[in-house]
């Protein structure tokens, strides 16, 4: 029983979010016309791709037992840098935005690993710094992207009838899942989060693993910024406020424990889609006209949902540890 219970809880937690996602989709399909129409599905995927990328980075950071509060500002910085580089083509814009994110990620890694400062505080500081850089570079206003160079296709374009941002997010989630489950690096990430001291004694390069997740998180946030700029036609220095907490909520809803050591990339994606669909369903509900819920309800519903999930998780956890 002792060995079995946590495993069962974990599986339930992982399938729980998928079950909830399926239930929500069935609800929407039964209740609204066009809910599963290609326009709505593709719009939801296109819009949520950047949140998914940020949540993917956050997922790794949280698996090591850390946290990254700087992702929202980093995305804003990435969007500004990408917009500034967009006249030189989509590749230049893409690389510039990701590079900006990587720089913030490297700073996070150095401050956390070398200066030995708590991730919460270190990334709080870089959040301010990235925001300051974005505002300085953009001169306190949004930066229009170049529409001639093809840069906007990164956000607005389609490939084989599927939005480009969704392709990017889907392929990175696939790669991320493979990296977590089938590589030494992935096992090291989970080992560091499970027990850092033991991992260090086993001779694994703990500092390098920790540094790598913050750098990865920064790069993914930068990429999210590129998509943001391409999708809305402008680099936006004040966007990204609260993205970090939305990403944390998605990861937690996906069943990844905040204490580290446990987690799944796929269920994080389910968490992002679940929280994103709540907004979508509220829109449809308003469209029916029977009730009029303002957009403000979405944060109330999301908060309530997060509450429900964490309470259920906590109950399952105490039950399993109670047996052990």
């Amino acid at each position, binding site marked *: 029983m002792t060995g079995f219970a946590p495993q069962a809880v974990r599986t339930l937690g992982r399938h729980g979010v998928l079950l909830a996602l399926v239930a929500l989709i069935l609800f929407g399909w039964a209740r609204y016309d066009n809910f599963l129409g290609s326009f709505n599905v593709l719009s939801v995927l296109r819009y949520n791709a950047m949140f998914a990328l940020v949540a993917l980075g956050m997922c790794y950071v949280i698996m090591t037992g850390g*946290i990254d*509060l700087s992702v929202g500002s980093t995305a804003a910085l990435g969007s500004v840098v990408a917009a500034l580089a967009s006249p030189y083509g989509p590749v230049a814009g893409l690389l510039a935005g990701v590079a900006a994110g990587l720089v913030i990620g490297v700073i996070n890694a150095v*401050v956390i690993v070398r*200066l*030995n*400062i*708590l991730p*919460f*505080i*270190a990334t*709080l*500081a*870089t*959040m*301010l*710094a990235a*925001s*300051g*850089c*974005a*505002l*300085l570079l953009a001169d*306190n206003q949004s930066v229009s992207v170049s529409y001639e160079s093809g840069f906007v296709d990164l956000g607005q374009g389609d490939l084989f009838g599927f939005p480009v941002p969704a392709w990017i997010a889907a392929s990175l989630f696939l790669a991320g899942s493979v990296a977590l489950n089938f590589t030494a690096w992935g096992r090291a990430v989970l080992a560091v989060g499970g027990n850092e001291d033991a991992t260090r004694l086993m001779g694994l390069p703990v500092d390098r693993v920790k540094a790598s997740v913050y750098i990865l998180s920064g790069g993914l946030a930068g990429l999210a910024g590129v998509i943001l700029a391409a999708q809305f036609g402008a680099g936006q220095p004040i966007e990204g*406020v609260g993205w970090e*907490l*939305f990403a*944390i*909520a998605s990861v*937690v809803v996906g069943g990844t424990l*905040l*204490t580290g050591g446990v987690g799944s990339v796929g269920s994080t994606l389910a968490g992002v889609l679940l929280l994103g669909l709540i907004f979508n369903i509220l829109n449809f509900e308003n469209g029916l006209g029977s009730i009029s819920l*303002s957009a*403000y*309800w*979405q*944060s*109330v*519903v*999301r*908060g*309530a949902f*997060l*509450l429900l999930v*964490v*309470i259920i998780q*906590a*109950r399952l*956890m*105490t039950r399993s540890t109670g047996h052990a």
Partner: protein
Amino acid sequence: MAELVAPAEGGRSLRRPEWRTFLSRYGSVVALALLLVFNLAFTPNFATWQTVNVNLTQVCAIVIVAVGMTLVIATGGIDLSVGSLMAIAGALAPLIFLGHVIPLPHPMVGVVLAFIVPVLVAGAFGWFNGWLITRFKIQPIIATLVLFIAGRGIAQVLTNGNLQVFNLPEFQFIGLGRVFRVPFQAVLMGVIVAAAAWMLRRTVFGRQILALGGNERAARLSGVQVGTVKRQVYMISGLLSGVAGLIVIARNSAADANLVGLGMELDAIAAVAVGGTLLTGGRATVVGTLLGALIIQLVRYTLLANGVPDAAALLVKAVIIVLAVWLQRQSQS
């Protein structure tokens, strides 16, 4: 800064380099003094009553919230919901004194209720945070994330996202009034800081907060009602957030649920960190938090007054936070 109450602090300090110990203990006082000297020398019109007032009014709401945050962090927790609770209190007060909730027999009844009810509601939400944390053993960062997300939504739903504009001197005294030329909010801030500092040092409740932040299991074994203390601490954080929300809307003569308290959790945590409170709990200084908030504000003022753009001031703030926490670590290791 002498109110650091670390159970096991003496002794070890002898082995550390002198300057590090000195900097970690009196660093914030020294930094504040240097800032004042620099400004007196270089910033025009610095030594005026108006400058003092401008800086004080900028910092009052942050300090009041940060006092609650100090107590929460002293227990080893964190409260992300403070900004949203400010928004709820800020949305409720005008609804009450404008008579949208219940008909008012007399305008003053509305004013009195507008002071009491929003603060109590924010306190109740704070207690709810503590209940989630103690009842379900949910990590504080996640438990308070719930109200961070939902709380601002509640405030927006209450007001339908509309700006509430008002002009009611009796209510706005909390943000605009003066006592002997000193802004009333600064007096209120001083009282709250003094009361919290006294409470943390001199009362059983204060010792219990530090004890459970230092070692929760040991505190529980020695008879501390860990759950009760935690719930009360989160409730205090909520109450103080409510007060800060009222101050902000009174100062602006308007309540905007989208903006009141936005980002406040980060400002408050930054002030606590710079002030020298141990972020893992067990050691806290309320006066340090006040100094931390004053330093952050004064740095920003210094930069702005000398022509540095606000965005660059953010970079400096980031460096200050890392530097302050790093210096504190140096003295501990």
